[in-house]
């Protein structure tokens, strides 16, 4: 157990120093020493990345640190997940999210922060990037068996693609399978209501809080 604590500390340190190589090394050590890999993810990586996210919210660290910390976490968790899968196990997630900035819109920052903090808080996230055509968002949701579709729009004129995704979901008869979350500078609760989205968040922290609070309401 002492070894486990020591390795969790190494993992934590790798997040705090934004060191992907160190995260991978710690994860490999956890696998080699036969630790409980699910617990290793939670105690070694998830807790420190959540703390980093909270520090970001308090403006004690900034986007570069959050990004590097998240990269380290992803690198370490990938090692643990691969080993877990090989053992026939599976990482528990709060939910599967596909997230992207809608078509015609190349703004990345807000969407990436949402993706990072959702991942930090136990969601399995597929980041589709920017300028994502509406059909591709739905294809990704279907292929990843997602619970949540999260869409960002930074321009008044690209918001309407959030509406289109929901309309397409309805037309395909799969609207009820997903919790649809919308956000972005011009997006408001009124817009979310108008287009029939399930949720609206001002920022990444609100997005996490909202999804955590409505977990029972997801379609599956």
């Amino acid at each position, binding site marked *: 157990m002492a070894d486990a604590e020591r390795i969790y500390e190494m993992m934590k340190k790798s997040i705090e120093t934004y060191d992907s190589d160190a995260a991978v090394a710690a994860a490999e050590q956890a696998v080699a020493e036969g630790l409980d890999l699910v617990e290793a993810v939670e105690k070694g990586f998830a807790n420190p990345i959540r703390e980093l996210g909270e520090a970001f*919210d308090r403006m004690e660290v*900034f986007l570069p640190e959050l990004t590097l910390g998240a990269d380290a976490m992803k690198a370490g968790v990938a090692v643990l997940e691969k080993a877990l899968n090989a053992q026939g196990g599976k990482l528990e997630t709060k939910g599967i999210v596909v997230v992207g900035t809608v078509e*015609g819109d190349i703004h*990345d*920052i807000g969407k990436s922060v949402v993706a990072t903090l959702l991942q930090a808080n136990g969601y399995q996230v597929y980041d589709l990037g920017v300028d994502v055509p509406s059909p591709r968002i739905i294809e990704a949701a279907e292929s990843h068996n997602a619970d949540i579709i999260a869409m960002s729009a930074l321009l008044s*004129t690209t918001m*309407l693609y959030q509406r289109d995704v929901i309309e397409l979901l309805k037309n395909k008869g799969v609207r009820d399978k997903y919790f649809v979350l919308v956000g972005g500078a011009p997006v408001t609760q009124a817009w979310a209501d108008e287009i029939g989205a399930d949720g609206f968040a001002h*920022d990444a922290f609100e997005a996490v809080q909202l999804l955590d609070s409505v977990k029972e309401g997801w379609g599956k």
Partner: protein
Amino acid sequence: MNFKEIAKRSETGRLIESKDFLMKSVAANAMTLSKEYEITWDGKTFLNLDDDMADRCFQAGKELFINTGLYSMNSHRVVQFSESEVDDALRFTRAQVSMGTGKDQVTIHHRQVEDERKPFIFCGPFNANVHEDMFVKLNEAFSQEKIVDCLFFPGYLNEVDGQLIRPTSALASRAAILYGQWAREAVRRGGRPGMAIAGHAVMAPAEIASTNEEWGLRSTDPRAMVLISELQVDDVTLTRLAYYLSYGCPIYMAFTPLIGGYGGGLPGTAVVAVASFIASIMLGGEIVHIGPQHMKYKQQTNQHSLFLASLANQAVARNSNIIATTSHTTSGRPGSAQYAHEFSALALTAVTSGSNVSGPRPAEPLGNNHVSPLMGKLFAEVAHAAAGMSRAVATPIVEALYDKYKDHLDLGTAPKGQPFEELYDLDTLTPTPEHQALYDQVKEELINLGIPLI
């Protein structure tokens, strides 16, 4: 530098991924240079009073820009500039630009820190969503405020003929045409037919359809381009630039450095802001707008943004001829006293730091037409009153104003305000008695705080 060289470099520059540009180039350089040049903030100061730090910030920003260049988001290539090219551009930057026509022609100047000259006033709906039925009336009401020098961003038409506009659709072209027609009609009705109109219609190449010397936007109207945070440009902007530079419009280049973003904390973001000022003139910008944005608050009157506006504007005012203007977005909305407290705090900060002013606008309008021409007038009056004021005099006033709104910065709890149609009599285009009373009350309050309003 000639635009054709920019266009060429955006197709031939070094090919890298966006994340690498932002993390390895911008973030890493901003962090290193802000330390190397000893750019600091104690987390308490509102206005920078350290001239030497402003000068160091300029040098750091220039070095950052030379190191990083500008990222073309669509071609994924870096448009790089040499130091001598940057020096040349700075050397030949025009310190004044005229706009508008006839008796309505006006000139904007580069301003110095604590300059006695009145700042230039860009004021209008500032791209708040404006319903097509209210577009002309709302802009007419702004243009009839004589203190406004240039009608600023006549409003985002996100709907035309009852239809939402898709950026690359035929409707986007129609919206651009109507935007040009209606904006011109509005200033004509306001008695200022030659008044300059700054802005952009829709964020798409179709936007250039707003141009027409007879009924639309003219070569004497500044056209606005927006850089993407940080130090990035997209094809839409480059396409519009190619057209408007050739057509002869003054180029109004805007950028929004993100405090807490890839520049890191305030010192790094200030360095990024200076680099963005320089990037803007390299692209042909003649008036450069800084929107000191905050990752968390998503508006521009928080304490971080006030200091950023102060430091970055002073850096540019003291070390270049760049014509700077500062945008003002607030948490409080029109129809509330907080709206005025916020824009007054930032206007005092920006004007005493050598900037002109653009705005104001709520960061999160709650529906269409969420702006007030009367509050625009008060904003302009405060900006004029700040001319010649020292930073030392402005500081306690800014602090007192900040104290009034600091607990209501959150967009969810900030005053919801009212739209134009509830604040104005739409037949006479005059403020309602209640809105006029709010103006009178806040103005008296501002005078009592020490702002020399007439």
